[in-house]
């Protein structure tokens, strides 16, 4: 019998069998390309699309919660179907993640769709950070008592304390800044300052991943960005793809003296490189009246017993795509170190792949000898009903 692990993120789904080495990362959406009018692209079919300009997105998630089931079904049909995982539903368990505070009616819909329409054999629903802390504990012979997961994904950022594997729900804190907001903000400031790119979500997102970073010396970097010529070590020129000669955007090398051939479009990325990710640390910069991540970490600790704090500070784990931003871990360490009490050690772990870390945890969980007692079987569901099925898991 197989177990499929699906970390069903609002931006990308991380999916694969528990025995696989790594998951596929599948955009959790359906896309239409402006210049390809004969078809649509479901999830990772986007790889077949040569022209990524003006992509139109149909997303199943809104503000981090699954609201459009028609779109999600299209993505799942593709993912579970013959072109990808060829799932034998009646003989497959599914581990699937849901957001914190997932609304009751979404949980109901999820359970119903997975059991009645797809007919999985058994189900395990959980929050992604639960799997991440499971994965983290697995690194040690003697597992740490507590873990503080910082999960910064597409829709938002959560700070979640765990003690002995249990979520300390009362302290879970959300910052409404995620990768989607960063990309949209970058689109807006480029469109305001240089070139209209409001329809180029995919291209600008790539540019964000290519040139943005988290600054550990914000005002110093601002001063550097003011300078002219070689003294300005911040400035990058980014060549936009045109999808005929240039299939992907890239940073133009400083010593590249080759004649610019005709039409290529350049974006100057100066203070934008670090002012955009800065929103994770200062949401108020764009008018969101919330604490940034380091302050929120201290806020979470303040809600918990003092004796847990050193354990949590000593076991901070970073997950989600935003943790890939260069400098993210350093900045976080600096800020938390300066805010937290001197008597505690601060230790922040950045997994080699913060995007797939929860998925890896799911694979380990599937091999746990206790796993079969943790799942809800379709038989249980059919005999005991929906409300029993909901109470079995603590995703709230």
């Amino acid at each position, binding site marked *: 019998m197989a177990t499929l692990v699906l970390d069903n993120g609002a931006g990308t789904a991380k999916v694969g069998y528990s025995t696989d080495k790594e998951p596929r990362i599948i955009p959790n959406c359906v896309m239409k390309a402006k210049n390809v009018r004969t078809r649509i692209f479901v999830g990772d079919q986007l790889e077949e699309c040569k022209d990524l300009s003006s992509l139109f997105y149909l997303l199943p998630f*809104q503000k981090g919660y699954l609201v459009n*089931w*028609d779109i999600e079904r299209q993505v799942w049909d593709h993912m579970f179907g013959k072109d990808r995982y060829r799932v034998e539903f009646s003989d497959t368990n599914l581990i699937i993640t849901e957001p914190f505070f997932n609304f009751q*009616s979404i949980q109901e819909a999820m359970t*119903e769709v997975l059991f009645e329409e797809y007919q999985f054999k058994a189900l395990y629903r959980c929050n992604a950070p639960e799997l991440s802390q499971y994965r983290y504990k697995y690194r040690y012979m003697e597992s740490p008592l507590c873990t503080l997961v910082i999960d910064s994904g597409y829709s938002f950022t959560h700070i979640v304390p765990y003690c002995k594997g249990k979520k300390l729900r009362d302290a879970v804190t959300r910052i409404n800044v995620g990768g989607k907001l960063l990309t*949209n903000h970058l689109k807006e*400031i480029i469109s305001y300052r240089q070139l209209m790119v409001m329809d180029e979500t995919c291209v600008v997102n790539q540019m964000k991943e290519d040139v943005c970073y988290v600054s550990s010396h914000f005002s110093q970097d601002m001063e550097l960005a*003011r300078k002219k010529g070689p003294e300005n070590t911040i400035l990058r020129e980014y060549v936009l793809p045109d999808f005929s000669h240039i299939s992907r955007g890239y940073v133009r090398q400083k010593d590249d003296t080759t004649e610019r051939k005709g039409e290529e479009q350049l974006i100057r990325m100066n203070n934008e490189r670090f002012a955009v990710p800065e929103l994770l640390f200062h949401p108020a910069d764009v008018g969101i009246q919330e604490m*940034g991540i380091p302050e929120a970490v201290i806020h979470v600790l303040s809600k918990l017993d003092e004796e847990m704090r050193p354990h949590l500070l000593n076991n901070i784990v970073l997950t989600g795509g935003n943790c890939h931003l260069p400098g993210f871990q350093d900045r976080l360490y600096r800020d938390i170190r300066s805010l937290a009490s001197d008597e505690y050690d601060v230790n922040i772990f950045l997994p080699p792949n913060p995007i797939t870390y929860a998925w890896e945890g799911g694979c380990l969980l599937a091999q746990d000898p206790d796993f079969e007692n943790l799942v809800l079987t379709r038989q249980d569901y059919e005999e005991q009903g929906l409300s029993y099925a909901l109470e079995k898991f603590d995703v709230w």
Partner: protein
Amino acid sequence: MADKRESARQKTAEQKRVLDDVSRRRRQRKVLEALEFDNFSEDPHADLKMSKKAPKFEEAMDVNGPSSKKRRKSRGDFKQRYRKTFAALLEEEYLSSQQMVNREGVTYFSASAPPSPLPERHFCAVCGFSSNYTCVQCGARFCCIRCLGTHQDTRCLKWTA
């Protein structure tokens, strides 16, 4: 008579200023909403009938063999119960959170990070550097005469992202 006209003019000027404040706040709210948009423009295929090409859920499932026959309940029923916008879900959650004091306090709403006590920072809309001034007309930030000029020439009150 002249007095009357004078005071009327003052009144409209005042009303304008107040209205401006409201519309500035509305602008700010729109900016935040725009940061959540999935798309800026409309569906580029809106004029096409794509639905015929996109496989229907039922068809896709039938490929997977006999187990799909066991599927119960009509899709229509499911749609009715679960087609809810995020706003509707929030509303539901809010109402139930009002009644559930026993659920140990924390809700979707209370889990939100509180405001930061740090002082606000402002950045020039045109160049992104630290800004000390506000455009009188629209409330956008700028840092120097040059940036104000750029802002006024092409962007002031026109840009409504």
